[in-house]
């Protein structure tokens, strides 16, 4: 339709159309967030927290791996300074998400505030690689809102179902690992560049030798450095060619 000069303009999608698009976009990652949220809810209650902490955590912090860590640290009564450090280390990766997340499409201070607040791994994964460069603002916000809803809703379901179980479910935390493994495979399928995941695997393996709280920042720093060196070498080769 766009190709016909002077033809009818592409209609602006309505609320229902944007909601349908957002539901489809969020289905893969968002429905992964539901069992993950349920795992968090179960984990929180099995760690001795009251059930309502699950939705408070998942709605307010809205950062999956940090919430698992926070529950573990809180039950160990870790000092707040250490909690702050953990939040910084676990989520420092979000600094890079600004590079590709289409915040320029989300106008208005409140919308921008929510959109940055809800810039999770899932929202990043769905919009990464320039796919969302032309998405309407409402579609982006609805996508983030739906993931928020799946995550918080899942945590309530998990927390409430904890009372129905005879005992702790071991192996449940693997849902988080499975989610990131699947996201890695999907990200690889988009660009077919094996260098990035292999370099990340090497950096992770080396960083796993460090104490647990230093693994994530060390792996990310090393991985970023490797990518920067590779980029510099590629550019120099092109300049000489």
């Amino acid at each position, binding site marked *: 339709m766009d190709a016909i000069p002077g033809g009818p303009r592409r209609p602006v999608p309505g609320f229902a159309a944007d909601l349908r698009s957002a539901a489809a976009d969020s289905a893969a*990652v968002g*429905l992964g967030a539901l*069992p993950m949220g349920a795992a968090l809810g179960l984990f929180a209650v099995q760690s001795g*927290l*009251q059930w309502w902490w699950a939705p408070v955590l998942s709605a*307010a912090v809205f*950062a999956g791996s*940090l*919430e698992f860590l926070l529950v*573990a640290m*809180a*039950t160990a009564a870790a000092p*707040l300074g250490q*909690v*702050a450090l953990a939040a*910084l280390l676990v*989520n420092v*990766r*979000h*600094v890079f*998400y*600004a*590079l590709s997340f289409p*915040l*320029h499409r989300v106008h208005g201070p409140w919308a921008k505030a929510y959109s*940055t607040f809800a*810039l999770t*791994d899932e929202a*990043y*994964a769905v919009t*990464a*690689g*320039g796919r969302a460069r032309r998405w309407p603002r409402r579609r982006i916000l609805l996508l983030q809102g739906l993931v928020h809803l799946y995550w918080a809703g899942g945590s309530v379901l998990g927390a409430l179902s904890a009372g129905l179980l005879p005992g702790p479910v*071991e*192996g449940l935390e*693997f849902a988080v*690992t*499975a989610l*990131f*493994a*699947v*996201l*890695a495979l999907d990200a690889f399928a988009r*660009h077919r*560049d094996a260098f*990035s*995941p292999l*370099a*990340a695997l090497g950096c*992770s393996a080396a960083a*796993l030798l460090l104490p*647990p709280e230093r*693994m994530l920042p060390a*792996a*990310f720093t090393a*991985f970023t450095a490797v*990518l*920067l060196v*590779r980029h510099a070498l590629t*550019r120099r080769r092109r300049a000489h060619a």
Partner: protein
Amino acid sequence: MPETGYMAAAVAVCTAITWALRALPFAVLSRLRQSPLAAYLDTAMPAGIMVILAAYTLRGADWGAASSAGPTALALAVTVGVHLWLRNAVVSILAGTAACIALTALAP
């Protein structure tokens, strides 16, 4: 059980730091969007970032309820295998998690 006041403070700290890490870089990095380096990082980073997070959660599994390396490795193989086969994220995650729970329960 953690005190309510302590828990509320811990949640507030995590919320503030996470939001700052997500929002503040836009002020600094948005002008990099036109640069070739940013374009390269945009395509090269996601797969690696997800690999590192997957590795990190395996590390994290150690301080939680003890799941030994065997069930975790097998469950990871199930997740990857099912995903390469069906390409359905929800099915892959559920299959892998179910495998991990079952294998952990069966492990001696």
